[in-house]
């Protein structure tokens, strides 16, 4: 176990600084009423101390570059280094967001082509790149649905249908958009319950939010019937692109009947997850929602590109970010798509599915229980630890924590909420077979440990910078800043 790295404030000494990093000599003459009296409590450290501190902190993390990271629903695939390098060329980094189109044609051409490629892989008619994460893409999608109904004078549509397996962002977004949420259950085989759907839809239905394949790791086989039912009732279909990696190059949401989608470029198109962002939640729409897209959108006139603004799209739902979304993320996704090319697009879903189905088959052979044993896995699948929890008192969380000791990031735990003691496992297409085999071996070893010495598994992890943390204390005795609780 490592020695803990102290807080940066512990390295601080009054009068120390990285003086080469800022201009010397300027002193401001600030009027008394505006002046800051006491300097902010920022650390006073040398450049080496800062570099060493943050490098050491980085080493406390698991990451894709260092560990297999099968976090379900998050698509933790390799982030090619070229995408970062070429999005950070000095001209691109130095471009001001308000720079006129005349000095922005190179940048705008990348975004325009990205829009075109995303339209093609999703089967949609228009793409706006501005939403800054999946949840904002969802927001944009539902806001467009609201705008569409309003524009038709159809004001009674106040409900959004969400399956019980949906990501928490779906119902949260519906609320944020001013809709009420109608939840419908899934069938035991993982498909949407069409009878429940029929009971839920009606004249108040604004739309339905679906992830396909769903968070249960299976493809919604009757999606065309779902689309027909919802459309006949006057509602629209929203596609949550969290699992787009499962079908990239195989099926398109537009062809399934979806009216509006978001894509998580940080999942399917391999931009970095960054320890919790930045993401990008680009949205795609079909013909009838084109006028409502969030601005700006990149347009092309002749050979030149420019941002389309409110005057071009007067019915737009408006602007969701100060500028044009997470532009640097968009450039990374563009480089990624150009490197994959057409054939590479098809291979994404193929090898993601191969890896998921292989891992599922191996885990089933090793005696683990699939939540949907009769179904094909999509790009991910669920193992349930219900039996282990009952028989050995070892839970999904215990397995997850022990996996960390074996050098694997844990799968997603306790989501989706309707499968008890679940591990949602998504290997992605960029992992080699040996890595998957090693993961199976670790799961088998932990199972053996659980049978012989459950306490050992329940006490895990042992080899990480910290052992299991007291979350109750964290929430009850709030300590959110250095100095809040003690005078250490």
């Amino acid at each position, binding site marked *: 176990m490592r020695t803990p790295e102290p807080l940066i404030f512990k390295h601080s000494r009054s009068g120390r600084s990285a003086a080469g990093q800022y201009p010397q000599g300027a002193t401001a003459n600030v009027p008394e009423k505006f002046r800051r009296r006491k300097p902010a409590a920022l650390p006073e450290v040398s450049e080496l101390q800062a570099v060493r501190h943050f490098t050491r902190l980085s080493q406390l993390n698991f990451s894709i570059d260092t560990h297999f990271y099968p976090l379900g629903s998050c698509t933790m695939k390799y982030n090619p280094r070229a995408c970062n390098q070429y999005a950070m060329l000095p*001209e691109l980094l130095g471009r001001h967001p308000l720079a006129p189109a005349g000095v922005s044609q190179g940048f705008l051409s990348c975004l325009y082509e990205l829009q075109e490629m995303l339209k093609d892989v999703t089967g949609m008619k228009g793409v706006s790149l501005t939403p800054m994460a999946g949840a904002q893409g969802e927001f944009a999608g539902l806001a467009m649905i609201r705008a569409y109904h309003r524009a038709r004078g159809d004001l009674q549509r106040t409900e959004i249908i969400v399956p019980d397996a949906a990501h928490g962002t779906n119902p949260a977004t519906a609320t944020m958009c001013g809709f009420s949420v109608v939840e419908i259950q899934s069938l035991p085989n993982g498909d949407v319950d069409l009878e429940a759907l029929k009971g839920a839809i009606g004249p108040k239905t604004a739309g339905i939010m679906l992830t396909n394949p769903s968070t249960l790791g299976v493809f919604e086989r009757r999606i065309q019937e779902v689309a027909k039912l919802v459309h006949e009732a006057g509602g629209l279909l929203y596609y949550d692109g969290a699992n787009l990696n499962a079908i990239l190059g195989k099926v*398109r949401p537009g062809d399934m009947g979806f009216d509006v989608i978001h894509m998580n470029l940080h999942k399917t198109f391999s931009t970095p997850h960054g320890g919790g962002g930045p993401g990008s939640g680009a949205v795609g729409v079909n013909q009838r929602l084109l006028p409502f897209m969030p601005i700006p959108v990149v347009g092309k006139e002749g050979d030149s590109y420019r941002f389309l603004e409110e005057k071009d799209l007067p019915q737009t739902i408006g602007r969701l970010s100060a500028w*044009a*979304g997470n532009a640097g993320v968009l450039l990374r996704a563009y480089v990624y798509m150009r*490197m994959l090319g057409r054939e590479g697009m098809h291979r994404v879903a193929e090898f993601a599915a191969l890896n998921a189905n292989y891992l599922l088959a191996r885990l089933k052979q090793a005696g683990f229980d699939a939540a949907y044993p009769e179904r094909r896995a999509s790009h991910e699948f669920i193992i349930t630890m219900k039996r282990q929890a009952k028989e050995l008192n070892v839970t999904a969380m215990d397995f997850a924590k022990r996996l960390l000791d074996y050098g694997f990031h844990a799968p997603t735990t306790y989501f989706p909420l309707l499968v008890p003691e679940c591990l949602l496992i998504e290997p992605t297409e960029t992992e080699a077979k040996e890595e998957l085999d090693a993961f199976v071996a670790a799961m088998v070893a932990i199972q053996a440990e659980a049978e012989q010495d459950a306490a050992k598994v329940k006490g895990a992890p042992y080899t990480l910078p910290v052992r299991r943390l007291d979350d109750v204390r964290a929430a009850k005795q709030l300590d959110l800043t250095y100095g809040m609780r003690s005078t250490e």
Partner: protein
Amino acid sequence: MPFIPHTDTDIKEMLAAIGAPSIDALFDEIPAALRIKSLAAIPEALTEMEVGRLMTARAQVDGRPLCFLGAGAYDHHIPAAVWAIVTRGEFYSAYTPYQAEASQGTLQLLYEYQTMMSSLTGMEVSNASLYDGASALAEACLMSVRAHRKSKSARIVVPATLNPTYLSVSRAITEGQNLKFDVLPYEPGKGTLQFSKLEALKGEDITAVVIQQPNFFGLMEDVDAITDWAHANGAQVIAVVNPLSLAMFKPPGEWGTKGVDIVVGDGQPLGVPLSSGGPYFGFMTTRMEHVRQMPGRIIGRTVDLDGKQGFTLTLQAREQHIRRSKATSNICTNQGLLVTAATIHMSLLGASGLEAVASTSQQQTAKLVEKLTRIPNVKLAFDGYRFHEAVLQLDRNVSDVLDALAKRNIVGGLDLSKRYPELGNALLVCATETRTDADIDAYASALAAVLER
């Protein structure tokens, strides 16, 4: 196959283990009619060398014009160490720290960030980031409606000197929740909030008053008086600030008698490159009493089974993955990597370094204003105390002047004539510490030449 490690032998063995005849068979649950026929709009794959050549060519089309734009995004020096560390795979390719034990690096850094941001803004608590400054203001307005239970109006008063884009974004994001935004005018000739218009609202139910400091014109508002007035009249106060400026200026936690309730802004000036507008990050700090109404991730310090210090996501009962339709916000992924940059940046510069950057930026802008207003027919619109932006008035159409400057490879500022028609041919300019005296002279002679025609 780029980024796919499978050999033919691997594929055979894996399909055998699955019991499937081919990879295609793995998609047999998908109706055949839905399968993709072609992807005509996707070009053939490029190698890394080819894509490098392509991107370099695209970047060179745009070049590096000399830029005097600000308006919410500012070109500051970023120490080399910042992005060298940010792009380490351990930060770059990790995700939200759901498994705390395997994410202590990110979590401790976020705790340090929360500490720095709270201190910089003079508030008690900070979240771990929002998307950007504009959407952070939208979240602050929604938070104020939740936190201020006595106010029933959901009415937000904003000055016309708020960055207009921030207001547009706030309207778009709160559209479904019946918030009302009232825009109060600025004092003509002065460029700061017309206080009498605020006083005229006495006795009305106002949920929150928004103040941007320095305001969109680069001027300083009388934040103490506005804050005290708002509190005396039962409204909360939301401050929108440039975090760099807080190295010099009084933090919102000390405005007026009690300090403000919520502080938001864009963290871009703290180590984040311009990069066409993103990714940046939004920050939010508040008083402890409102912490449960905050949106976004919050990190807490706690102990592990052995009593050793550790860090974890906390107060998750506010968030969408637990509360679903009753969450404080739908935000999930935020802007973690940019917060990483800001935390390293603030550590390297320290309070005195940030103050030096802020005051040098102010000084360069003063020089810029001085040089440009020496040109005939270039006037300063407002002469109050300012930070690092200024509004100039020209004798002709600003957009034509900017086009002419662009031909000389100078991005001359932001045309305000559409947003603020009453100001005439108005131009918002900015200089940071990265604009040298020679740069300023180059701009001045270019503008003089353009206006001479």
